[in-house]
């Protein structure tokens, strides 16, 4: 027995994994396969579909005046919505982290509602609420504000569907900020505004930017919630995702893919740039300049 034991101990670990967690090869393989099937393949399909067009055709489709107008509408509404979410999401995260109040758990859960709700349901609900006869619509009409079936409605729908991105990225960072940092700043004579501006905000900044960027890119592609409230008037309140849908309805798959590729490239570039900026910012904080 002692012989077999010593043999077992003496056996060299040739070709065997020395990692603590087993199954690295298998899990990586499954992940890559999944990424390829679910994410890369459709994107490839998009490229293949588009590549059937000549460069001139491609350019013609994506610079169609009505489409260009939809870019503008989409960009400014998405920007407004995500900036609004940056402010409101920060406030919401702040309240959820810093204060204790009855029903806090519930509010925390409700934040995720836009993710859980089918976007079409959200769109129909918002359209009903903001319509001239709706609860909010009536009040806003008195103020002379029209939301439903205008670009403002697009902003509302976009803000609604993407608010969780900001809250959920800012919240954990806010939780991690030690109360001592604020106390230290106050003991050094700083007023509240200065404490926020000089101590809290720089720590939250990367998370806010990420949240806003996610919210923005999500808004660029939002479809379901918007079409019910936007009114979809050509040149006024048509978003790019609607243009893609219209092309699909016309069975013009190539044109649809061409427009889609514009959205895709914009989103990817933005996310990539933000990632790059953020890693540099954080590297500085962690002292690995």
């Amino acid at each position, binding site marked *: 027995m002692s012989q077999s034991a010593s043999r077992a101990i003496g056996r060299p670990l040739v070709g065997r994994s020395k990692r603590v967690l087993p199954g690295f090869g298998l899990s990586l393989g499954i992940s890559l396969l999944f990424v390829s099937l679910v994410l890369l393949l459709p994107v490839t399909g998009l490229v293949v579909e588009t590549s059937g067009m000549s460069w001139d055709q491609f350019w013609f489709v994506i610079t169609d005046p009505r489409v260009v107008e939809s870019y503008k509408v989409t960009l400014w509404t998405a920007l407004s919505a995500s900036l609004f979410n940056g402010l409101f999401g920060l406030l919401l995260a702040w309240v959820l982290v810093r204060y204790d109040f009855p029903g806090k758990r519930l509010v925390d859960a409700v934040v995720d509602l836009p993710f859980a709700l089918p976007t079409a349901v959200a769109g129909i609900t918002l359209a009903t609420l903001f319509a001239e006869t709706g609860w909010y619509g009536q009040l806003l009409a008195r103020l002379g504000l029209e939301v439903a079936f205008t670009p403002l409605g697009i902003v509302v729908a976009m803000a609604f569907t993407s608010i969780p991105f900001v809250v959920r990225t800012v919240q954990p960072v806010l939780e991690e900020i*030690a109360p*001592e*940092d604020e*106390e*230290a*700043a*106050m*003991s*050094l*004579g*700083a*007023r509240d505004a*200065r404490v926020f501006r*000089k*101590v809290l905000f*720089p*720590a939250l900044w990367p998370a806010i930017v990420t949240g806003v960027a996610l919210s923005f890119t999500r808004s660029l592609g939002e479809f379901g919630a918007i079409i019910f409230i936007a009114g979809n008037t050509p040149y006024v309140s048509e978003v790019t995702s609607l243009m893609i849908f219209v092309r699909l309805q016309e069975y013009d798959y190539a044109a649809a893919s061409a427009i889609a590729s514009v959205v895709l490239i914009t989103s990817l570039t933005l996310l990539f740039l933000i990632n790059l900026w953020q890693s540099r910012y954080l590297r*500085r*904080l*962690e*002292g690995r*300049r």
Partner: protein
Amino acid sequence: MSIVVDGISKYFGNFQALHDVSLELPEGKLTALLGPSGSGKTTLLRIIAGLESAERGRILFNGQDVTALHVRDRNIGFVFQHYALFRHLTVAQNIAFGLDALPRRERPSKPEIRKRVAELLEMIQLPHLANRYPSQLSGGQKQRVALARALATQPRILLLDEPFGALDARVRKDLRRWLRALHDEFHFTSVFVTHDQEEALELSDQVVVMSQGRVEQVDAPAALYARPDSRFVFDFLGHVNVLSGRIQGQVLRQGEAWVRLPGQPPEQDAQLYLRPHEVRLVPKPTPHACLPFTVEAVSLIGAEVRVELSPAGWESEEIWEVGISHGEFARQPLARGDRWYATPDVGHLFLAHAEKPDTLHWEPAHYLEAAGSGI
């Protein structure tokens, strides 16, 4: 600036963290708040700073009531255990923070701030690290930067919450000396919280011992060590050897152990507290005492030889410790398992229901001859 703590009580929910604490911290002195965790020392410090508010009582700076004043208006310097440096600011920016935060009419000009920061960096001996970020510094460096930052606005009061708690022993010793020198140079009133009795006794002019939200004793370090006021302070200030027994006639007895007491206390239960340096080891019982022991361990590290003893023929809750000099040890070495007897020079007797001890002295001269050479 002197600090007066007047009848402070503090609750956290139903838990009372401080019970009617009153203290006077004289101007220009370095005071230690010493106590085990949960004794309320940090809470008291934070109330003095204004980072925490009390349910009852007042805080006075130089006779002026500051209880209602916000921390930012109290003009104190506060140093946190974990430094609390702003990690997105450089060392120089951290130090300048308090100066930049001053209202415009009091704020020095940009070049003056730069000059002041340079001076402070010189003072903490880190001028070469001005443009580093906190994450690039060691713990000791961080704490020095935190100190410089707290001192930048020239507060009259410096409050430190376990300032050396997160540092390793070597750095801690250095920083302690450095803080003492700094204090002697600038003469602000300092209060620091610690659970390390050695740190408190070494560094401070006055020690406030706290336990369970109450002040147990306030004294200068030497007086505190010489005359602890209560069982708690004894237990807390280093090791203490205890003989619990009953006084009959003139003798405190338990099992085979006995000590003859000077004076004539009435018959009752009592405890005799003896500190490691107040006891001698002798090979035979003396006329004063018979405290038989078996030597358990001998530790040669440090300025003294520390001998651990377990009672033979009687009982003690904790093991006894006796310190002897290396010279004595060389003359008469002790080995593990040997039988020795202890005899007291000075002792502190707690009678059954007494809060405070009676200090007793025994004349050493004659028994040494009777018992042969003792150590």
